[in-house]
């Protein structure tokens, strides 16, 4: 669901998107306990809540962070066992067992995160599977502690500070109360700037890094959150069912959670609840299927992943947008943002110094002893034939590649081995050859998310404010200002993927400026633009430079670059072969040779 600012009227807020349906759903859940007739149905209702809670947690790592973890069931089982052991062997009340049941999986998650989280998707998934197997085997083997294959029985119900919550209706309401709190927390965390940052990190990690977003850290936090939710769900399970056995650590629990998330919708809070309700009730409805009900699960999962990858809630939202489209909400008013960073150094000194950069790939020197400088207020053009090392050099400056040798300093600070996201935060903003916007996000949100670091960007800040995240509101205001400065403010509420190439390019530049950079790195910004768009872009870049920004442009388009650049540097086969004014470069025989070849070539 898109992050929208507070709508002007409550009526509009209630009918936005699929909210009417969701409110209906909430009403049903609230009313249901009064309608159930048997203890069995009440237990099912409680189980739906427990799995909804686990799925909500799973949405952090699987949905928002986009990593297919297979330990959610393990965290659930660990939470259940912790509760069982603490309640039966140590007689602790729920006011202690519940937080501990959430904390122990978090500790476990933190422990395994280091080796496992940085792995690519399938490595990560199978590593988490391996961990799950280890925990299961340990639970069976460690008999004195865990009761072995028989598990632990006789777990008391929830006893809070001496008061026992009655089983049946009591525990059902308690569990759903927990779900409500968890849902509220999930909503708070993902509704604003943090949620937008998660989306960018998931959809386009390279872009996220270039905006100062620490994608590894985001994934880490999501992993811990998923563990906490799962642990709590496990605790509630233990208190409800009163027996914990190795079955709670077995794969079917994980499968159910994955199915819930995929079928319901992996980033929609309502999806976790709807999914849980469907998946837990399936065996009940298809009682006739008997032991085939898991086959129904598998089929549901397969069908959904093929036909509705965003789950049922996602499908509902899409249908709403298609058959009952609504006008997008008005964009927020622009908030002025200074174009120069407040951390500017004095004019005249070089802002960016690159000295002796070297990078080899498999024995071939892609960049060979390249040095250059860029001053504030200057436009430097970087040219050279294909394969001369320009993009490799830029990637080294922005921390995507590690240099083999050489130094990069920005405003006197050495950034040679700094992390990509930190380099972005210290004042270098870049655009890419293939425009790296997130197509599904609106133009406004694409730019606003670049304010992440400036807003203090982080997990804790997402708790602030009321119905809307104030940091996000501020960020979007700043974004409007920048979009207006680039002349694309009328596209603000459109999905970025819908825009024409030239407009996308301008949005990308607006996004780069949102970082309040001191240095702007542009990789072939004129590509794909027609002549009038190129002239417009050149003018804007000249204005930015005059305002004090340092600009480094890679380009092949000489009619665009030559009038714009103050100085140019030409690379060939990884080396600098010429540097100077555009006029000097144009007449330089080595440059001509690099592009055209030598007369001797012709004779050979």
């Amino acid at each position: 669901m898109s992050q929208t600012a507070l709508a002007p009227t409550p009526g509009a807020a209630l009918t936005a998107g699929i909210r009417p349906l969701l409110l209906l759903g909430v009403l049903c859940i609230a009313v249901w306990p009064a309608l159930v007739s048997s203890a069995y149905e009440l237990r099912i209702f409680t189980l739906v809540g427990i799995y909804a809670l686990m799925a909500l947690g799973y949405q952090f790592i699987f949905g928002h962070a986009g990593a297919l973890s297979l330990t959610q069931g393990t965290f659930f089982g660990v939470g259940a066992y912790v509760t069982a052991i603490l309640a039966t062997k140590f007689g602790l009340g729920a006011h202690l067992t519940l937080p501990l049941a959430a904390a122990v999986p978090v500790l476990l998650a933190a422990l395994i995160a280091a080796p496992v989280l940085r792995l690519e998707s399938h490595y990560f998934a199978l590593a988490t599977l391996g961990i799950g197997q280890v925990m299961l085997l340990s639970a069976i083997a460690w008999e004195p502690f865990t009761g072995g294959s028989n598990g632990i029985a006789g777990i008391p119900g929830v006893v809070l500070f001496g008061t026992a919550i009655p089983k049946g209706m009591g525990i059902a309401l308690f569990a759903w109360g927990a779900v409500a709190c968890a849902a509220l927390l999930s909503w708070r965390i993902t509704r604003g700037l943090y949620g937008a940052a998660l989306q960018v990190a998931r959809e386009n990690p390279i872009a996220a890094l270039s905006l100062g977003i620490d994608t590894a850290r985001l994934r880490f936090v999501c992993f811990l959150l998923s563990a906490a939710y799962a642990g709590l769900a496990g605790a509630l399970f233990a208190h409800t069912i009163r027996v914990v056995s190795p079955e709670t650590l077995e794969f079917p629990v994980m499968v159910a959670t994955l199915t819930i998330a995929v079928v319901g919708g992996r980033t929609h809070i309502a999806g976790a609840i709807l999914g849980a309700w469907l998946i837990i009730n399936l065996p009940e409805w298809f009682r006739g299927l008997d032991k085939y009900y898991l086959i129904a699960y598998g089929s549901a999962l397969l069908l959904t992943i093929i036909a509705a990858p965003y789950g049922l809630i996602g499908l509902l939202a899409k249908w709403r947008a298609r058959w009952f489209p609504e006008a997008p909400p008005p964009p927020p008013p622009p908030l002025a943002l200074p174009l120069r960073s407040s951390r500017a150094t004095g004019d005249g000194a070089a802002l960016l110094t690159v000295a002796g950069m070297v990078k080899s790939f498999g024995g071939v020197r892609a960049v060979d002893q390249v040095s250059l400088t860029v001053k504030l207020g200057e436009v430097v053009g970087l040219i050279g034939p294909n394969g001369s090392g320009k993009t490799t050099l830029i990637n080294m400056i922005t921390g995507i590649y590690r240099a083999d040798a050489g130094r990069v300093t920005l405003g006197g600070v050495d950034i040679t081995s700094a992390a990509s996201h930190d380099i972005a935060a210290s004042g270098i903003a870049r655009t890419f050859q293939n425009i790296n916007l997130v197509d599904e996000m609106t133009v406004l949100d694409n730019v606003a998310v670049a304010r992440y670091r400036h807003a203090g960007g982080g997990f804790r800040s997402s708790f602030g404010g009321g119905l809307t995240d104030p940091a996000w509101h501020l960020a979007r205001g700043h974004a409007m200002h920048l979009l207006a400065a680039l002349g694309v403010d009328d596209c603000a509420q459109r999905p970025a993927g819908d825009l024409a190439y030239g407009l996308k390019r301008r949005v990308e530049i607006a996004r780069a400026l949102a970082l309040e950079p001191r240095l702007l790195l542009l990789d072939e910004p004129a590509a794909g633009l027609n002549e009038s768009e190129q002239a417009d872009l050149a003018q804007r870049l000249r204005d930015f430079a005059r305002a004090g920004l340092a600009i480094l442009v890679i380009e092949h388009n000489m009619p665009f670059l030559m009038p714009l650049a103050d100085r140019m540097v030409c690379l060939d086969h990884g080396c600098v072969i010429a540097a100077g004014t555009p006029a000097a470069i144009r007449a330089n025989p080595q440059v001509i040779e690099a592009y055209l070849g030598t007369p001797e070539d012709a004779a050979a």
Partner: protein
Amino acid sequence: MLSQILLNALALGASYALVALGFVVILNATGAVNFTHGDMVMAGGYVALAVSSATSLPGVAVLALVIVAMALVGFVFSGLAYFPLKSRPPVAIFISTIALGIIFQNSANALFSAEPRKGPPLFADGLITLGDISMPRQALAIIGVAALLILAQHLLLSRTSLGRKLRATAQDREMAAAIGLPVNAMIALTFAMGAALAGAAGMMLSNTFFVTPTDGSNYIVKAYIAVTIGGWGSLAGAVCGALLIALFEVLFPSLPLLIPSLKTLAPWLFTQTASAILLYLGLLAIMFFRPQGLFGETVQRRV
């Protein structure tokens, strides 16, 4: 004693090698991890069981039927799990294979119940005695048959025109399409091949280790460990990795038998469970310290 253990390890390793080989062949061709691969091993065991109880065919004939049946399963599987999701991110295929794995497992459970069942032997049960060493016939048979299957697959891939096309498709699908190779057919064939190898392994394992519907997750993790050890994408590496895993699994718990002083040292360490845990921990260690595998990648992929 040692020779007995080594023989068992070799037999187990040969079966694992077939599993790992099937896994990596599909991985190379599609770039997607087939989570159902372990369940295909299990399915092979059950097909063998079904065929041998329904007919009185000799073990080798049953094997041939298992291979054919599983190849067909592989074909159908690719149509359900892979081709509808071809242009989506690889995680979608991962999920679809998980889904099909669930369907496989629970179909097996419904058809055969959850009790462990013993599959048919390749030739006959019993022992062969050579001098003062007695070896189980099945173990020898497994080693022989597996070696033959691996050799056959190797020859197919390296000596035939079809094999060339399969390898080209696996290495660069776009380029293969650009020179006119029928890429979809190649991929479907690869799935069939992978499933057939898994099925063969399943039959062989079902005689010694019995077969239950939930065996799948165990085999997929073993295949994965083998491929991680051997280097992601390398066929020879997968086979080596499989042999190493089997060696560890068989040798480690048997160490107290070879070195009696260990028996009193830490009896809980030399159990099947503990060695399984150690194996998984080893996997995590390899992924952390040397993600390209112990042998690295023998084929450099295009960047």
